[in-house]
């Protein structure tokens, strides 16, 4: 002992016997498949090969192997596992820490051989119950699968129908259009002189408009530049651009340098423009922040406005508030002479009434939308489309309209809450069609927008079986449908695959 002895590990047993019962066939906790590694009276080599120990140290309640393999039947190794045979039910591995912890884990009671816990052997009972439920499940699966075949068949027919109808509608529309085209040719030939006059008129107008536009662009750019050039040094710096959040394309609240460069790159290089100082001041003091996007974005004006409109209702309001300004921006083309006008009007209103029957258009759109949905590999979920399923709880009525929305309505009055709109299939890899995700529901106070996850399980009936709210405003719905039933394995296979008899 000349080496520095620094740390000493020592186990103290409280008065507790090890009292190992006699295992005849194999050491306690060893599965049949590993039996050959535990040969009595021969040195035992840890299953990871890390060391070899005398056989009497196997299951001696002291952990020798790093992989825990020397103590399959005791709680000594932190990473060990114990095998319960569970005759009559299915075998299982449990963590070693559950051996003799006073809690019955193995249905054959073998994990509690020295804890004083009184465990009942429940394997037979559990086996019976499992077989029963497997049987029931197998029957459900079988019937469900048959129903599913029907659903697939119907879906296929339905889809064909719909496709056919769409094609037909589109075809008839096309026919109409062709007729109109023909009519138009006839008309136009007859109306050539009129057409020329119209074109001349149009061209002159376009030229005038172009002039107006160029002038306006120039002024606008100057104003924009002065606004951006915060320190009035005649150059627009990156920092100055970053201080203008309205230029922030990803709306993350800050303008990164990359973003800044992009906006600089896209707009024309800003050059100092001779603009009277007062004018720009006036603009700055008069401006309404809602006008910023138009005024700064230059050529991107249209895009920016479109994007913004979705997010900002104020913008729309602003448009209504300042109609003069709008009119000023879009000087409308002066009308043709009245004769030309009435001729064109007459012809077009007649043609439009033929092609643009609104009812027909809406049918077409709906059909296109429905055909566009992912109703599963064989369209087996198509039957859920435009259906709704309800579940009533003590407080609420929950309503699931697949591929559309989920909602919740208080039973005793109060308005309906949107718990999410159809998002996408969200099952795990290999089982994508087992989970539906609905999101962007009504916002929660201090929380996210409501969303619902719908878990689909095989059943003969299509029904919502439960709802819950595991996290605030995140709902979970259980839904059975034949559409997820898999082709059943034969009952014998199911049972034998799970039982070590």
């Amino acid at each position, binding site marked *: 002992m000349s080496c520095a002895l620094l*740390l000493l590990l020592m186990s103290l047993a409280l008065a507790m016997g090890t009292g190992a019962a006699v295992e005849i066939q194999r050491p306690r906790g060893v599965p049949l498949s590993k039996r050959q590694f535990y040969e009595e009276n021969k040195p035992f080599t840890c299953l990871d090969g890390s060391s070899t120990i005398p056989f009497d140290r196997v299951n001696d309640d002291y952990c020798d192997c790093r992989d825990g393999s020397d103590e399959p039947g005791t709680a000594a190794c932190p990473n060990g596992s114990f095998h319960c045979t569970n005759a009559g039910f299915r075998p299982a591995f449990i963590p070693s820490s559950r051996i003799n912890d006073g809690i019955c884990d193995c249905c054959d009671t073998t994990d509690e051989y020295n804890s004083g816990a009184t465990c009942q052997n429940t394997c037979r009972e559990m086996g019976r119950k499992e077989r029963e439920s497997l049987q029931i499940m197998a029957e459900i699966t079988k019937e469900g699968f048959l129903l599913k075949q029907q659903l697939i068949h119907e879906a296929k027919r339905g889809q064909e129908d719909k496709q056919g109808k769409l094609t037909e509608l589109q075809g008839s529309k096309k026919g109409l259009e062709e007729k109109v085209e023909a009519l138009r040719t006839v008309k136009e030939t007859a109306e050539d002189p009129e057409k020329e006059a119209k074109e001349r008129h149009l061209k002159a107008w376009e030229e005038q408009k172009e002039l107006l536009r160029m002038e306006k662009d120039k002024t606008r750019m100057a104003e924009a530049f002065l606004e951006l050039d915060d320190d009035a040094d005649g150059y627009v710096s990156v920092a100055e651009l970053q201080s203008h959040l309205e230029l922030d394309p990803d709306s993350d609240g800050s303008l990164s340098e990359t973003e800044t460069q992009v906006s600089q790159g896209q707009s024309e290089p800003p050059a100092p423009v001779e603009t009277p100082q007062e004018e720009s001041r006036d603009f700055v003091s008069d401006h309404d922040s809602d006008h910023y996007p138009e005024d700064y974005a230059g050529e991107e004006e249209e895009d920016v406005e479109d994007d913004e409109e979705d997010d900002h209702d104020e913008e729309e309001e602003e448009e209504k508030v300042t109609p003069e300004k709008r009119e000023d921006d879009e000087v409308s083309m002066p009308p043709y002479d009245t004769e030309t006008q009435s001729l064109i009007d007459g012809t077009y209103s007649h043609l439009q009434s033929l092609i643009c029957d609104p009812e027909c258009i809406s049918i077409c759109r709906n059909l296109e939308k429905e055909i566009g949905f992912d109703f599963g590999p064989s369209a087996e979920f198509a039957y859920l489309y435009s259906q709704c399923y309800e579940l009533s709880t003590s407080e609420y009525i929950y309503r699931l309209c697949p591929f559309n929305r989920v909602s919740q309505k208080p039973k005793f009055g109060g308005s309906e809450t949107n718990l999410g709109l159809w998002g996408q299939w969200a099952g795990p890899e290999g089982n994508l069609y087992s989970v539906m995700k609905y999101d962007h529901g009504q916002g929660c106070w201090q929380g996210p927008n409501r969303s619902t996850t719908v878990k689909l399980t095989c059943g003969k009936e299509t029904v919502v079986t439960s709802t819950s709210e595991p996290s605030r405003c995140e709902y979970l719905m259980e839904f059975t449908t034949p559409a997820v039933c898999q082709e059943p394995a034969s009952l014998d296979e199911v049972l034998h695959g799970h039982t070590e008899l």
Partner: protein
Amino acid sequence: MVQCSQYVLLRWHNTNLNKHVLTLCVCALRRQRALKPGQSPYRALLETLELTNTKLTLQLINDNNKVRLLLELYRLQGNMTRVKINELKPLKPRFEVPDVLINDPPTEPLSLLSRDENGVVLSLGADSQRLIVSAKPFRLDIMEGREVLLSLNSRGLLAFEHLRILEDGMWEETFKSHTDSKPNGPSSISLDFSLPGVENVYGIPEHADSLKLKATDGGDPYRLFNLDVFQYEVFNPMALYGAIPVMLSHSAQRTMGIFWLNAAETWVDISSNTAGKVRPTHTQSTPQTDVRWISESGIIDVFIMLGPTPTDVFSQYASLTGTQAFPPLSALAYHQCRWNYNDQEDVAAVDQGFDDHDIPYDFIWLDIEHTDGKRYFTWDPHKFPQPKDMLQGLLDKRRKMVTIVDPHIKVDSSYKIHNEIRSKGFYVKSKDGGDYEGWCWPGNSGYPDFTNPEMRAWWASMFAYDQYEGSMENMYTWNDMNEPSVFNGPEVTMHKDALHGNWENRDLHNLYGLYVQRATAEGLIERSGGVERPFVLARAFFAGSQRYGAVWTGDNAAEWEHLKISIPMCLSLSLVGVSFCGADVGGFFKSPSTELLVRWYQTGAYQPFFRAHAHLDTPRREPWLFGPENTALIREAVRQRYALLPYWYQLFYHAHHSGQPVMRPLWVEYPQDTATFSMDDQFLLGEDLLVHPVTEEGARGVTAYLPGKGEVWFDVHTFQKHNGAQNLYIPVTISSIPVFQRGGSIIPRKARVRRSSSCMEHDPYTLFVALSPKRFAQGELYIDDGHTFNFDKQKQFIHRRFSFANNALSSSQLEFEFDASMSVLTLRKPGVNAGLDWTVVLQ
């Protein structure tokens, strides 16, 4: 409106616009702070001096208004001095705090050494300590030899607003929509203390601030006023949920304590002649810290604990207010909480989740939503229709539950608890005599008067198994909102003119929370016939609350700053008696990043009260929801906690037995090492484990300070040895929890981590013996049944001392392996009984 024509509003700087904006009329503080140091108007009337066996009394007179005060001085056993100052003849009695001291502190005789017209000198007995009473101006100095340890009123800030008769108008103060009728008028008190040679003061929790207290010159004072603060900020002297008016001073020479026994709103001003300055090396001026205490009402009753060591101060304070309740062992294990586990199925699923992911836990908690409409002592009939089945399910796995019982009671004539409290007249009264009502979780609520012993006895009886329906022996209690929280009250608490019997809430506000926890703990003891130890968690607390259970740092947030501040917050509590402290793991408000959550588990695993908790509006965060790698990291942190439970239990036994803190700042064990004095990013558990949690986002390494010249420290994971008195850079990965065991110590662990601490009851102990450079080590092991009072009443426990000395031990039957590369010796199955004498000799 006579006293306070102008209001001083302190506006707490809250960033979130949603939170209550706390404003406060602090007339008393304004008046008191307006006093400038200088000539005190108080003079001691030496002719009134009386000296008895137990105390000295002396009258003081304010030469400005001729009002007389009565000074009482006591020499207390255990090197303490008590100074009490009250009005000589108050118009009516002033409030003196009851129920905090565990007994009338035993005194020692004082003796008069000398006396002249300028003052008197008294002997304080041992250590050549003297107390000098100067007459004009009045001043007290406590000396040891030629050294002044501490002076009172040396800056002349003694102030005592005497009670008087209202001549015209009203005392009333108004701010925002709240009116304080102040029927007794101004009544504040103040006294200053000077601490020569002292640069470091600690304590006066609860504040989300550094361990070492800061000078308050030019800023707000540290405020002690129990409040339900919405989204508190860190590094701020603002008042939080609890208040312990105890300050420790420390220098390399001496540790002392000041216990200001007053339960009214209190402020502490600290100034230091060295604060914020590089210590002057060229001048001779000694450092000095000046402290001033101000309270809104009551009397001056201050205990000066003279140390001289940190251990002495802990013992002295424990002798006054008692020690930490010895918790059931399982309460030291891991707690899983959330606002809220929704229903019985949810509870069962979370319970199963822990088993499926092989993560141990002992307690699952139910927040307010489990009740029937926030009526405490009841269950929501839809969500929890069969509470006993649920509890039995947990019991079958040897696990436990905590349900919340808050002190606000729904005003509802169909609610039994309310009806009984109302009919017995147990509610706090408003100034006009009716039951005081305020808004809290249930809506309109009453507040039981826990200061009334009859009320407490009745409350305790409500925890009986036949009263609290659905309760079982594995169900324990959480008292939240016991500041008390009143949503529509001033600063979200009770009106100061509300009445507890004859006393205003103003007088005893900070004491309310202690009484709530006390009554509940007594209920849990009674329901078991006095056999079982209770476990009660409370948010508000006062001096003495340590006797009744655990506290936590309230509604923190899922932010790195909040993880960091949990260390000084619990250290500050530990220094003043409250060892059983923790912070919500993960942060209560907001949602933690996965990294923050993992780091918080790793930190929480080494803090006394280890509970994960989350706000209702946050996404779920059970440990297995963040992918297998993070599940494994959290599992490992929790398992480290479980393996170390024998050591935790032993530390709590000591905290209970002798008042020594479980979690300690380094300076407590290395009082002369000035490098440790302001350290609060690492701490000691007992004296043998040093923990430096990783609390920085994206950390690649931490620098831990290993204290002690000649000391060695072993990394508990790698057994690598490091020398003491050095800053050690430790590279870290996301799995690292830097923990070191002191060479010379023996720490018991249980290596078989099971699904709950109860399952590990009969498992063997593993001793980790870390040798000192002199090849010596000692340690101990404390074992009892883990949950009853039998350790105390029947002395049923095993407490062994281990020592390793003289280089060689073993017994012939022992086999051992020695791994030279790691310097680790493993004794294989020594087969000794932990309860018997034995010697193992290595040869």
